[in-house]
């Protein structure tokens, strides 16, 4: 089985009639880690949303071949349901994993204090929201994990948790895709760089 999960040629993405990414050829394998870098407006978030199937703009004359695999994205705005508690969100988003409730909670408590479990998401700070999403990613362990601006909102402890998560995923041959303005050094981890300023 091929390790390539996404192959595009002449990929053009945009919104309405405005083209953001024009003529991009990429080939992504889930056994590698990637960093998408570029200036503001270069199309990092657009490309990331496209990879994670969250793109809601227009595809122009693009050729895209994609495998059906599990991809999860953490974007700049939280995906968690604001009206529900953390515990209810975890039940909702991780229902299909084989882990038991206790195993899931052990992972969650690595990222957040126990008091947060029955708090509504809308009372969470940005940092805690991101930690909650990271804990869900660790529970779900998708084949591909995309994160936009990885260091945003996280304190030093949060960054260490993120680095650990990415390292552990890399060891088990799972793909991590980061996007930021400049290359982010995460404890010496190797990344293939997709520089959108060059396109």
């Amino acid at each position, binding site marked *: 089985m091929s390790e390539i999960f996404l192959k595009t040629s002449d990929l053009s993405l945009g919104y309405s009639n405005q083209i953001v990414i024009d003529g991009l050829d990429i080939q992504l394998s889930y056994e590698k880690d990637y960093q998408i870098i570029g200036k503001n407006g270069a199309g990092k978030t657009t490309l990331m949303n496209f990879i*994670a199937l969250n793109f809601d703009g227009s595809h122009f004359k693009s050729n895209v071949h994609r495998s059906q695999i*599990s991809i*999860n994205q953490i974007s700049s705005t939280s995906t968690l349901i604001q009206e529900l508690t953390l515990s209810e969100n975890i039940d909702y988003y991780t229902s299909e994993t084989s882990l038991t409730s206790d195993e899931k909670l052990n992972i969650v408590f690595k990222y957040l204090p126990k008091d947060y479990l029955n708090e509504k998401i809308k009372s969470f700070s940005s940092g805690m929201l991101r930690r909650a999403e990271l804990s869900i990613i660790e529970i779900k362990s998708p084949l591909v994990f995309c994160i936009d601006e990885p260091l945003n909102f996280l304190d030093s402890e949060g960054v260490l948790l993120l680095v650990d998560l990415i390292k552990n995923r890399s060891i088990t041959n799972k793909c991590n895709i980061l996007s930021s303005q400049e290359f982010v050094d995460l404890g010496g981890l190797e990344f293939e760089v997709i520089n959108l300023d060059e396109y």
Partner: protein
Amino acid sequence: MNINKNILKKEILVEFKNSSSLFLITPTMSVLIIIFPILIENRFAVDEDLFIISHLLFLIIFSTLFAIRKPIILHELIKELNFGNYKKIEFFNSKSLAEFLIFLPQIFILNILFSAFTNSSVNVSILYFMISVVFFAINACMINIIFQIFTSFNNRFVQFILIVPMYLALSFFIGPLWLGLGQELANIYLLMYLGITVVIFATTNYYIEKEDLQ
């Protein structure tokens, strides 16, 4: 049928925690309480059928307010479904069922209160009345979700303007039934309503499945 119990549970939980339906039924009922006793005072001048027409009007207003109480933002919905690895078809079916379960009791309460406050009744047997309300509720919920996931109108005013004619069309089947029809004609109307429900459900499922496969 692709119904996901997690989506169903989440939708009902969110509704329960928001109590948004309560904020709708209260003002609608307040209007009813204030206006209709005044009308009843002059009942000699009001035709009996007017109450049934007003009944339908209240049903449409309430359904429209219910439909636009919490707009679905398509981009956020797609993100949520992808993060939870849920399919769009599961969302449509589960959300339709959740909305129906939330909406139906409220519609029955509305109907009971309307009859109580106006001292009027519809000219149809209770069984036919209930079946017609159930069909109306199923179709209203499905049309609302279809409308929201196939269009990008996040503006409540635009939604209000566009969804009212659709609900008017649904109520055209109820109108003659409530005003009093013979048994055979009533059966035909209910069968037509069933046919519309099946067609809406099947067409939507077809388009969503087709979209997911691409």
